[in-house]
């Protein structure tokens, strides 16, 4: 068998295994929390009899392992259960919310990833000169400021003072793409500023590392200009570390947007999760946890696979 196929299938198998582990962990942790769904529904003042009845009704008296496998089977089949608080089907609500979150993440990624790589290349080209220093200073500043602060500052100046965009990022299905994009402009800017620095710094470091190598000297002695040397000879050999950090940041765009969604009141997964955590709606929290884990594991698996594919020694064995 081609070694690539073997390595990639190993990664896939490992990813699936990891996902099961994560689901068990999430389930186990919510189990370990004091109180349960019945308690949450009935509140502090519930009588023991009422609690016992509700537990019986919800099947909470059965062993945790049985309930875990029931829940897991449901999830594999796309059934995430019903919400305790609004009795809606979770899969349906999540589907809508997840779509919104991915929409936001997609546009943030579309802007931030190419921008970060471009800025990284520019920083290498003008290493230790003012463009490099300026790029580093600006991106490090934006990553150092908490995102909610950037968010509120942007809302104040751009939305309130200048009135260019709406301070609230409310979107719904009846809006056109243009309207939606205008609505999410500010959160996209905030997210871009948060993830830019990591990716830019890693691009810069990975390429600088490759620039020390003898084949870059060979390229220089072929009379190539600096951008061609970086683009043709350094970049292809720096892909693996760059992809890894890009994927981590993409995962962050999906999983870590909670704060930004709350600031802009954006109807995404983060808001949904926060809402239901406060209401102790355990099935929703579980579903969100598994989805986040799946996205995280999936994107990191993609990073691993791209790293494998980027290695010419593995792609073209002797």
């Amino acid at each position, binding site marked *: 068998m081609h070694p690539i196929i073997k390595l990639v299938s190993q990664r896939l198998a490992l990813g699936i295994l990891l996902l099961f582990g994560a689901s068990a962990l999430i389930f186990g942790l919510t189990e370990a929390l004091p109180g349960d769904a019945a308690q949450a529904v009935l509140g502090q003042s519930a009588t023991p009899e009422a609690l016992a009845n509700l537990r019986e009704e919800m099947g909470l008296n059965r062993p945790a392992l049985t309930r875990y496998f029931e829940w897991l089977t449901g999830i594999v089949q796309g059934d995430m259960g019903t919400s305790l608080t609004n009795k809606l089907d979770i899969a349906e609500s999540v589907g809508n919310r997840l779509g919104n979150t991915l929409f936001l993440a997609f546009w943030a990624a579309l802007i931030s990833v190419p921008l970060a790589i471009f800025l990284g290349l520019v920083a290498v080209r003008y290493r230790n000169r003012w463009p490099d220093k300026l790029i580093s200073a600006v991106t490090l500043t934006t990553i150092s400021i908490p995102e909610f602060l950037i968010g509120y500052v942007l809302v104040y100046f751009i939305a309130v003072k200048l009135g260019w965009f709406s301070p609230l990022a409310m979107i719904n299905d009846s809006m056109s793409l243009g309207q939606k994009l205008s609505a999410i402009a500010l959160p996209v800017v905030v997210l871009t500023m948060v993830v830019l620095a990591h990716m830019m710094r890693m691009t810069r470091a990975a390429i600088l590392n490759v620039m020390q190598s003898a084949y870059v000297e060979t*390229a*220089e002695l072929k*009379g190539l200009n600096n951008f*061609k040397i970086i683009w043709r000879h350094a970049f292809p050999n720096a892909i693996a570390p760059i992809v890894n950090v890009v994927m981590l940041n993409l995962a962050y765009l999906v999983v870590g947007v909670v704060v930004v969604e709350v600031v802009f009141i954006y109807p995404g997964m983060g808001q949904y999760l926060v809402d239901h955590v406060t209401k102790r709606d355990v099935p929703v929290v579980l579903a969100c946890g598994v989805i986040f884990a799946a996205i995280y594991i999936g994107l990191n698996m993609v990073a691993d696979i791209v790293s494998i594919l980027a290695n*010419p020694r593995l792609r073209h064995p002797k």
Partner: protein
Amino acid sequence: MSDTLLKVRDLKIGATVYPPGEKPRDIEIVHGVSFDLERGKVLGLIGESGAGKSTIGLATMAYGRGGVRITGGEVWVNGRDILKSSLKDVRKLRGGEVTYVSQSAAASFNPAKKIMDQVVEAAVEQKKFTRKEAEARARDLFAKLGLPDPDNIGDRYPHQVSGGQLQRCMTALALCPEPDLVVFDEPTTALDVTTQIDVLMAIKEAIRDTGVAALYITHDLAVVAQVSDDIMVLRMGNMVEYGTTDQIINNPQEEYTQALVSVRSIEHEEKEPTPNPLLSVDGITARYKGLNFDVLNNVTVDLHPGQTLAVVGESGSGKSTLARVITGLLPPRDGEITFAGRKLSRDLSGRSREDLRELQMIYQMADVAMNPRQTVGTIIGRPLEFYFGLRGSEKRKRIIELLDEIELGESFIDRYPAELSGGQKQRVCIARALAAKPKMIICDEVTSALDPLVADGILKLLLDLQKIEDVAYLFITHDLATVKAISDSIAVMYQGRVVRYGSKSQVLSPPFDDYTDLLLSSVPEMHLGWLEEVVAHRKMESAGH
């Protein structure tokens, strides 16, 4: 109008050095060198490390490696001073008029791109040829350089061809844009001798057929004698001697050149084997984890007390693996090792402290075999503490004795490795091994990274120490001249097997087996026309078979 292609006048090159604990300062590394090169001629630049030969070679492309800068003088290529040209013009020169072949093709090819893309890149970039023409030219060059399957080898990636093949691809890369001048920077140094001969011949023929001029940089006078018309001898950034190849080889004027020509003149009388060998390696078979073949196959050799067994072979022959098995780092699959009358445990963990003390090792890279944060005194003192429990003034006295033995002296005791030259570092490693009062020292390519004159000094030292301390050496090397200089018995290894074994006089006298014959005849000899003789001889032999 003369035919001068390259005119270098009073070339001065500087660099910034960063000595530990001091302020960076600028030094001059080439102090005003001048020479001419006519079209189609080959000039050999020869010298030891630090002579400035690579630096001068790169200066003909107006290039300085790392912090190296050209600080003065003129470099005229095709009638213009390239040091006064704009960067844009210099880029036209690089890869177009002047091209470069580096020592390590393996490192100089981009691992992520196909060979063909890299070979034609400069020619296309400089608009000398279209991509199609350049590829046709590259295939021609592949064929001319004797590469297998010249029509398709360009579709491979660098890691898919051997080191010798890649070095030829690098030569094709340099010749593809039809340059006026090629700078060859130690192009065969990293290759095995038997591979070197073919690459050398391929380069020589390619130079002759294309009529290109070349600067041939090497530390090996015997190699440069085969390819160049003129030779310039350099030392520490100064020209020592400059003349025709014939004059430099057969009638060197300067003392330094004479020393280079007569290097490897150590005489060593072979000793008779004793009745009881110190070390008996009996039927050793070994493999590394994850490999499905044996790296060593039924290896049997003896080493007698106070004598030297040279284990010689090319890369991949298993000679270093043998050292790992003897030291216990790699437990063998089969066979046993007897040392000083007792059976040694297969595994390092099963060996006594006495076993460890009596069997020491010296490595090829002295730099990385020492802790850069320890002084010479600490490095040599460690085995004295560990094996003999020496402390304080007693230990210091012994360290100084050892420093005297390796001809460095007390003043070195507080120095750090970074403050030592390559030869001095290797001497410190020898002292550290001797500190344990071993019966035997394994020397793994200990002179390979050193300049010839320095290596000679180390070999002489090792021989002298053998007389004084009565220590035996297992001397691993790929260099036959070294073998001749110091061994009492020799084992020739090839693909994990000992193909020839016996006393030095037996192994080095005919009749030879095929491999030993090939190995011996591949060692460059310091006379003109040697390369052609060997190649002609081999052609005749293969025709006769």
